[in-house]
């Protein structure tokens, strides 16, 4: 069994595959909106140093990633231990050496990695235009606006993903999440602009 098949198997027997999806979307959305908020704040402040912007955003992205990993790991270890204990009670057997024991050890780590990497990867994608501009790559639009564009696109795609899971209109779901991002940006402009 390949590593991916093994991971899928462990998620399936613990019925946690839907939790992976939820963690990915929830924390990915967190990452996208946080970056968008920071960059909108920078647009309002109009700083001329892109390195400062990159460092601030990178700091926030790493903090989001670490927060996602640690919070999910701690809570999932407790959840998996409890679930394994209940199953051992029902089976009247020690399941530590079984697939369920493996799942109790590995599933928290898998969920933590998804929970932490989703905001980190999405944040890094949003930062990409700013980083490209900083190393001298010409962009068709100013780097901060390009980053906002990437953020809006990713938020829209997260909505599309949710729409496909729920088996509803992907366009409607994408527009819904996009609206949340637009309202967030508008609030920042209104409140931070003064």
């Amino acid at each position, binding site marked *: 069994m390949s590593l991916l098949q093994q991971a899928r*198997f462990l998620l*399936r*027997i*613990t*019925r946690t595959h839907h939790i992976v999806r939820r963690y990915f979307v929830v924390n990915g959305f967190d990452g996208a909106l946080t970056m968008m908020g920071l960059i909108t704040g920078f647009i309002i402040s109009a700083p001329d140093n892109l390195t400062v912007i990159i460092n601030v955003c990178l700091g926030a992205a790493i903090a989001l990633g670490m927060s996602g990993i640690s919070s999910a790991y701690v809570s999932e270890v407790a959840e998996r231990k409890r679930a394994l204990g*209940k*199953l051992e009670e*029902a*089976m*009247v*057997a020690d*399941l530590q*050496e*079984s*697939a*369920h024991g493996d799942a109790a050890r590995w599933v928290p780590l898998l969920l933590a990695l998804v929970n932490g990497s989703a905001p980190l990867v999405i944040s890094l994608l949003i930062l990409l235009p700013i980083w490209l501009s900083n190393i001298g790559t010409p962009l068709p639009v100013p780097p901060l606006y390009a980053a906002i564009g990437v953020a809006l696109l990713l938020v829209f795609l997260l909505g599309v993903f949710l729409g496909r899971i729920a088996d509803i209109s992907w366009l409607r779901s994408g527009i819904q999440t996009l609206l949340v991002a637009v309202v967030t940006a508008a609030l920042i402009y209104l409140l931070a602009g003064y």
Partner: protein
Amino acid sequence: MMVTVKRVVLDILKPHQPNALEFSRAIAETGVDYHVRLTVIEVDQNTESVQVEVQGSAVDFEEVQSAITGMGGSLHSIDLVEVQSRSDMG
């Protein structure tokens, strides 16, 4: 004299997951020509009792048992065994 196990019928208690298909498949993978038949006898809140019949030219019982415990199952009893002896002289 060589004795080989041709068929065993086992009474097993297992968690709902892995499901019957994955459970049978894991047992079948322990041999090259195994024919596995799983019948669900009783379903409880967290567990299910199943009867598993394994047939093959030479069933390796240790391996079958190891696959069962690996999937979280617990062997309750061996309900039927079919073995065959054969002279080494041919």
